[in-house]
């Protein structure tokens, strides 16, 4: 077996969840790595959309920003940002949206706005960006977040974007027709919503991780599904492609002054 980091496992687990026919609204960082990994392995026809307006983009290196020239040059076409949010996101054309955040609760509601009170912030975070509408417009949401007690909290300070709200049928009571977070992929495991309560419960544990480690890293009493799988370890091919992608990216960013 090949050696890998927990971060690589997280990215690879997220990539695997994507299907060849998906239309994916990608964010910077782990989502970008995961969706391009999917494109370069099992899902060559996947459509990647970045909120800067690029549609069907096939970057050779990972972008640092959501609007790097690489995304535009390799795209099928690029539309204005109002069109992106109106026709493409709100229009219901995106099957999977990626989100992450500084804080998450058991119903996968996310906070990227503020730690502490909104008017007197302890830490002012960047804010929602596209998240509030990504959360409700995409067919389903995949969340990628490294796990830890400071981020996996009992109660988030601010609901930047809706997950399953207070659980149960809360989304549909709010008139939302999309599924919301169906997967929460961490460096330790994979969560999915309980069909009834919609609480995120552990359905798959990454190789070598224990239930205690997961409980330890979760700020609420974490639940496990009746039958929990072991996540398949990264294959040599997955790791190779991911590492090549990161190496190309590093080289290109070092060379961006040229």
């Amino acid at each position: 077996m090949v050696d890998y980091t927990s971060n690589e496992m997280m990215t690879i687990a997220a990539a695997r969840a994507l299907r060849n026919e998906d239309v994916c609204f990608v964010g910077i960082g782990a989502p970008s790595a995961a969706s391009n990994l999917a494109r370069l392995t099992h899902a060559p026809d996947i459509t990647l959309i970045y909120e800067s307006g690029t549609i069907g983009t096939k970057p050779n290196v990972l972008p640092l920003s959501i609007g790097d020239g690489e995304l535009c040059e390799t795209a099928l076409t690029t539309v204005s940002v109002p069109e992106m949010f109106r026709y493409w996101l709100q229009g219901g054309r995106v099957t999977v949206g990626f989100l992450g955040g500084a804080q998450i609760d058991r119903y996968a509601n996310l906070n990227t706005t503020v730690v502490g009170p909104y008017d007197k912030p302890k830490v002012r975070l960047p804010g929602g960006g596209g998240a509030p509408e990504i959360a409700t417009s995409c067919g389903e949401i995949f969340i990628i977040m490294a796990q830890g007690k400071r981020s996996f909290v009992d109660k988030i300070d601010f609901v930047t974007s809706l997950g399953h709200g207070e659980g149960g049928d809360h989304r549909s009571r709010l008139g939302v027709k999309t599924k919301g977070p169906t997967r929460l992929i961490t460096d330790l495991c994979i969560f999915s919503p309980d069909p009834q309560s919609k609480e995120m419960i552990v359905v798959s544990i990454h190789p070598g991780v224990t239930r205690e480690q997961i409980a330890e890293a979760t700020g609420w009493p974490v639940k496990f599904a009746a039958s929990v799988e072991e996540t398949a370890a990264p294959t040599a091919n997955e790791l190779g492609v991911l590492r090549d992608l990161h190496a190309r990216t590093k080289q290109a960013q070092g060379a961006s002054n040229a």
Partner: protein
Amino acid sequence: MSRFLSLADAVSEIVRDGDTVAMEGFTHLIPSVAGHEIIRQKRRDLTLIRMTPDLIYDQLVGMGCAKKLVFSWAGNPGVGSLHRVRDAIENGWPGPLAYEEHSHSAMANAYEAGAAGLPLAVFRGYIGADLPKVNPNIKSIVCPFTGEKLAAIPSHRPDVAVIHALRADRAGNVMLEGILGVQKEAVLASKRSIVTVEEIVEDFGPRNLNAVILPSWTVTAVVHAPRGAYPSYAQGYYKRENSFYIQWDKIARERDTFLAWMKTNVLEAA
């Protein structure tokens, strides 16, 4: 009809203390040198609108030009925080900074509605989110056909839009290509506008029949400013200086390193 002006003259004439100013550019074509000129000319009490405040507003806020920020994502993309914006919000330095926060979708729709001459933007947004609880400018309308409640916010109608574009022709028409962001909408939504450009060409020549062009009569001033977007980029001219975004994190983290950098690179670099 747009006029060709120097950057100093354009800012001096078009941007006034107390104005609401939208300097747009979504990663691509950020009007950086125009921002520097506004700082040099010491504009005060500006209400600054921008989806992603980025380095340009970190600098304007840190130099005390702004009284209010209207935004949807205030970070250094792929890097981290905007330290000057945070210092203003969290500690009131160099002065208090009011802010009004939206989502990207809301901001994009507000520019679109402004360009369309409407008083409000209507979209499906903010469902289950907390922002409407803290931003009184987020309201709703009810669809008279379906009963659906939709989000409504005021359209953006800035006093001034400042953007950077690829080319202008001799008649003062302006062309954009690549990642378009909300720049066309920002100009059309504003009372006045400054467009800095990489290049002035005799005419645009053969082109896509639907090329993105702002006619001369929609723009107040065109300014020739090569590399005017740096460290952002201009498609076909130069690349984004990603390394500078990473350096900025260190420069802007402390007040004195920030002020020293601004002195050398902006105030004394006209």
